[in-house]
């Protein structure tokens, strides 16, 4: 189980442009951190690097268990990490019920997974609607269902609150608090403040 994430000497580039260099940062169980910075500063790229979707130019991304032992990065990413990006990862031609069931089956879940996700994000009235009929906020809530339906330690969130209205922002804030209380970790790229106590990692402007 992931108890700590550490970034050391990390440099990430997109094409010829280096987004940031020599970044050192650590996150422990029960902690949240927000990534701030201008458009193009590398917030999304950092999340994708932690998720293993892009290779850093230099430096190391390490995951540790509760005893401080290093974890296999592929295992930690594959079984213990959620990445909720700008794209919701939903097929528009299927119903919300089918997509939620797929997400939970695909990622692994307890027998309560789907029910928990439905309860946490008020998905019951949406379940029989096709995803193409849902608003941006409803789609985001459906995508967030996987965070609860398939419990994992590390949540990597990219502008998670952007399409949500006030009611569901509060509900998601409550979910994040409970995740942290249960020794989860949250790393979120944001433009607006996150409504939970969180450290800030400012990536600045364009380098």
């Amino acid at each position, binding site marked *: *189980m*992931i108890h700590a994430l550490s970034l050391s000497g990390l440099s990430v580039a997109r094409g010829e442009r280096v987004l940031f260099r020599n970044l050192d940062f650590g996150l422990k169980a029960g902690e949240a951190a927000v990534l701030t910075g201008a458009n193009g500063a590398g917030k999304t790229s950092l999340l994708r690097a932690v998720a293993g979707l892009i290779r850093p130019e230099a430096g190391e991304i390490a995951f540790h268990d509760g005893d401080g032992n290093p974890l296999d990065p592929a295992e930690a990413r594959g*079984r*213990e990490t959620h990445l909720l990006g700008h794209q919701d990862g939903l*097929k528009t*031609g*299927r119903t919300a019920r*089918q997509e939620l069931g*797929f997400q939970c*089956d*695909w*990622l*692994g*879940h*307890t*027998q*309560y*997974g789907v029910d*928990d996700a439905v*309860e*946490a994000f008020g998905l019951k009235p949406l379940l029989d609607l096709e995803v193409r009929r849902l608003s941006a906020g409803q789609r985001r809530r459906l995508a967030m269902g996987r965070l*609860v339906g*398939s*419990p*994992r*330690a590390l949540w990597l969130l990219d502008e998670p609150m952007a399409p949500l209205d006030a009611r569901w922002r509060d509900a998601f804030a409550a*979910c994040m608090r*409970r*995740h*942290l*209380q*249960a*020794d*989860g970790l949250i790393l979120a790229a944001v433009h607006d403040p996150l409504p939970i106590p969180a450290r800030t990692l400012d990536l600045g402007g364009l380098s």
Partner: protein
Amino acid sequence: MRFGPRDPEGVEPRPPGLRGATRVLLERELDLAWNGGGGPLLACGFLLCLTVLLPLAAGGDPGR
């Protein structure tokens, strides 16, 4: 409701494994294909036509 890596009831998530993951992915893609309006039938029909017509288009062996 369960949150975080620790499950208060000790119910661990069940990762699907390679076979399970392949199965759920295949089921989803097949569902999309069948309900998407003749996608797989169109592809099968095209391949059938190709298989039947290609020998005719190639013609007989000129050496015989």
